[in-house]
């Protein structure tokens, strides 16, 4: 059974080996002449304003998390939509319940003020 995976293993080894070879070779063979431009974060485009490690408000994460949450739940709508005709009325009711539950969560989040920025 495991023999079937042998090609994958070989491929894996080859890929790893090539990458390692490339890095090591360029490290050994290439010459280094760093200039100010070369060590900048970006070689082109607009240079970064301010300091790189700015603190981002907690709100940002809350909103991001909530977005992710509701976004993910909405994904369920796709398979439902595909089989909607098959499911019939029952499917509709079930999705209503599902959305209803999401709505409760949404109302709760709203009411708790999680969506307000300040």
């Amino acid at each position: 059974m495991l023999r079937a995976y042998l090609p994958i293993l070989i491929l894996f080894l080859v890929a790893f080996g090539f990458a390692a070879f490339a890095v090591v070779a360029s490290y050994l063979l290439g010459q280094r002449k760093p200039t100010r431009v070369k060590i900048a974060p970006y070689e082109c485009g607009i240079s970064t304003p301010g300091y790189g490690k700015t603190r981002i408000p907690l709100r940002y994460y809350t909103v991001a998390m909530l977005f992710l949450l509701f976004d993910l739940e909405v994904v369920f709508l796709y398979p439902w939509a595909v089989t909607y005709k098959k499911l019939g009325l029952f499917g509709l009711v079930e999705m209503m319940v599902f959305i209803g539950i999401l709505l409760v969560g949404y109302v709760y989040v709203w009411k708790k003020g999680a969506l307000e920025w300040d």
Partner: protein
Amino acid sequence: MNLNQIMTLLPLIILASFAMGILLIGAFAKNAKGTSTIGYIALASMVFVFLSLFLFVGKGKMAFGSMMRMDVYSIFFNLVFVVIGVLTILASISYVKITGIHSGEYYALILFSMIGMMLMASSTNLVMLFISLEMMSIPIYIMAGFLRNDDRSIEASMKYFLLGAFASGFFLYGLTLIYISTGATSYQAIANFIAGTQRWNLSKLIWVGIAFITIGFGFKVAAFPFHAWTPDVYEGAPTSVTAYMATGVKAAAFAALVRIFFSVFSPFQHDWTSIMWLIAVLTMTVGNFTALVQKNVKRMLAYSSIAHAGYLLVAFVAGNAMGRSSILFYLLAYAFMNIGAFTILMVMAKKNDYHEDLDSFAGLGFKYPLTALAMSVFMFSMAGIPPTAGFIGKFYIFSAAVKSHDYWLAVIGVLNSAVSVYYYLRVVVYMYFKEPEEEIPTYRFSAPTVFSIVLAVWGVLQLGILPGDILNIARHSIMALM
């Protein structure tokens, strides 16, 4: 899905509706911190669930396309969860007020996690098992950190979450391996697959899967060496939450463990017995020995909870019908005595001083004779002294071990039980034979708290004196599982 299936799901539907309702009420109410009204609503939901459970007695119905099964076994556990819920909610009503916990969120989370527990007991599908496990755990991660001004609580929540996620990883991986090697997620299908294949032709991954599932369950029931989080989390979490998770999570995890191991993995019983034996022995021993040196009663109870998990594992290792039914009985008994003990700790908790150390119990027997008496009953029961539920439970567990000719296990169990008497009785000794160092503060007893304690004492004594009915039901439930 027809009406019949909806009826089967009725307890869960009730719980979910109440949970969401409470969540909204909590959000819209002017001041939901410590409101007891919401507690009573949660209590009402328990009553409805209890009533709805009677509609299913004896009917092995499937729901969600055989992802879960409402049989006598699940109903037994659902009743255990209701008992746990009622006792916890009753005890919480004034505790929530004292600690200023947000009622709406608190009770909603209790109900949500109970849905998870109930699903765990009745799930017959690997996917459902995992979902229900998470559904139970996530609210409890949150609840453990409910005392936001208390570092210990936050630490508890964080630790529990991190380690829980870690263990969930193992668990999920185990489930995946089982799926990979059998090509099915339904218990029935997996069991059929295993039964229809020669042992030599089975993929080795099944064993690895069982190993990982064992680790996951080991974490949830706080078995050695996956128990390390228990003392810190139990100590840090709000006491009511500790009571709830010590009993509820343990019961749910054992429910799922027994179901999956004895109905799906039973052909591998010989394989798992030795390691489980070792885990059971180490769990009991580590739990008891460490509990001995604790000065904080709440922490002592946490270690004792590890030891109790060990006893339950003894019954699991014994593996015969008696052992399995004694797991059910013991979990119910444990619910009464453990929540009872924690309730008394809750009574003693003040805003800034939780009075959890042993010294707080000194002389309690003279100022609060009835409370001390109740505490003594719980301690006696945990130590396994007749005529209490703990005695009958332990008696059946060790008898089961003897019956399966595992004498050493029984002997080690009994010795452990003897060790445990020391630290349980120390509480009693402090209450009755020790002068309090400082004056005992005035504790207030609200009606629901008193009711909860009385209920717990009643349960402990009822199961201890007239255990026949419950033992029969437990036996019956186990039959339904097979």
